[in-house]
């Protein structure tokens, strides 16, 4: 024991050399430099206006505290329309994502099919639903259908990726079990793959329904119908008590959908 004492005193806590710390310094330094460069263009210097224009803010705040629910029937029916847009958008997206998710999965799809499909799905995902919505408004006119299509395409791309990742993490064993019975490739997928991914797929779809009910609200702002459009009209008329009432309807509805979907998802997994 005594012999080892000087040795243990010589042990030093581990230190990191400059070379090891360089990546950290580079990343953090880069982030800070980027923030400094962007300070001017995004006009952060106007932050004090929030307080110096306090007259405006006070008026705005007072009105928001007096929600005007006279038209509540309209708000609820428009909110319902928004939820319906989200429902159909998500449903069409799931129908897109099932075949595309399967052909994008590395473990069951041949490379010549999987690579171009992945590119296509990346493309769908990278276009924001607002942009797709604007395109469809040009194509099919103002209204909920444009919103449904915008959600369907964007969410279709997102779900296809999530679905294919779920497929890539399955256990190969049961699929081989089905294959060994002389099943066709389609039957292998239906009986060996789908049962394994079904809970995860349902959970992803529900989660996207949750976030689509929020996106559908925003899509209303560009004229794709629903509560967002009503909100936009009240905002443009400076009718803040109505804006406040609509905002409360949205918050309550979205929270209810979140809670419902989380309860279902907790049971799935």
């Amino acid at each position, binding site marked *: 024991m005594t012999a080892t004492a000087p040795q243990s005193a010589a042990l030093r806590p581990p230190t990191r050399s400059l070379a090891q710390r360089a990546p950290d310094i580079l990343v953090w330094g880069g982030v800070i430099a980027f923030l400094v460069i962007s300070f001017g263009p995004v006009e952060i210097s106007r932050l004090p206006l929030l307080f110096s224009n306090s007259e405006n803010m006070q008026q705005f705040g007072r009105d928001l505290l007096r929600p005007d629910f006279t038209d509540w029937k309209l708000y609820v029916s428009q909110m319902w329309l928004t939820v319906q847009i989200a429902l159909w958008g998500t449903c069409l997206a799931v129908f897109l994502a099932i075949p595309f998710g399967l052909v994008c999965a590395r473990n069951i799809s041949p490379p010549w099919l999987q690579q171009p499909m992945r590119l296509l799905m990346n493309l769908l995902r990278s276009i924001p639903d607002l942009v797709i919505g604007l395109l469809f408004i040009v194509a099919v006119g103002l209204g909920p259908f444009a919103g449904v299509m915008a959600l369907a395409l964007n969410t279709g791309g997102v779900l296809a990726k999530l679905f294919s990742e779920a497929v890539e993490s399955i256990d190969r064993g049961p699929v*081989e*079990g*089905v294959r*060994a019975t*002389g099943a*066709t490739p389609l*039957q292998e997928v239906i009986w060996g793959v789908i*049962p*394994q991914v079904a809970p995860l797929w349902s959970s992803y779809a529900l989660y996207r329904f949750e976030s689509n009910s929020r996106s559908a609200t925003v899509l209303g702002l560009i004229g794709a119908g629903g509560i967002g459009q009503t909100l936009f009209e009240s905002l443009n008329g400076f009718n803040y008590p109505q804006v406040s009432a609509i905002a409360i309807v949205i918050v309550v509805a979205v929270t209810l959908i979140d809670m419902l979907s989380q309860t279902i998802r907790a049971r799935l997994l």
Partner: protein
Amino acid sequence: MTDAAVLSVRNASKSFGPRKALDGVSLSVARGEMIALIGPSGSGKSTLLRSISGLQTIDPGAGVIEAFGGPVQAGGKISRKVRDTRIRVGFIFQQFNLVGRLSLFTNVALGSLGRIPMLRGTLGLWPRETQDAVMAALSRVGVADYAGQRANTLSGGQQQRGAIARALVQKAKIILADEPVASLDPVSARKVMELLTDLNAVDGLTVVVTLHQVDYALRYCKRVVALKAGKVVYDGPIDGLDRARLIDIYGPEFEDAFWEGAPK
């Protein structure tokens, strides 16, 4: 033996990177045989069995695998008609490979996929005969009471018996069993081995079973094929497997390959 061969493997090799899992293996199996495939871990037993079912390709070259006189694979390519062969070859896996979230009934009904019209199989509209065959098979292997339960709620022994029922519904003429008892407790293991022996003796099925424990080979099989480093080092009656041969196959620690003690 070769004239009535239901399975024939000629000069099959398989490499995984630099390692040769199979190295020029030839094997001929006659109708109605029950063969134990033994050898230390990594000797190529599983690879051989999986290649016979076309679940895995062998190296391109001279290797040929045939079943019922038709090709399973040759020259490193799986035959296009492999499904016709698979329908008649039941495969039992070490990890059972039932689909966990499907009921035991559905899992066993999947055995009929190759025999019923494709649309019915794809949609799961099992014909009356399939339903009857499933229940009969489940009852024969002794797990009919669990037909409605999800497969992943069953014990290993129950799942493995379900897998055998699946092969029965498949009306397989050959059963390839890859370490069927390696994941089971001794009682379940004995039941599964007795079922396989029964299928061989009563139904006349050809059974090829890879075994980790040489005890089982000694007790249940007449012919033994031993692999070592991808080569067949013994192929003959079980009586010929004496101490010297076992040392040759497993090395001086060959007694580890027994549960209940090696023969003197």
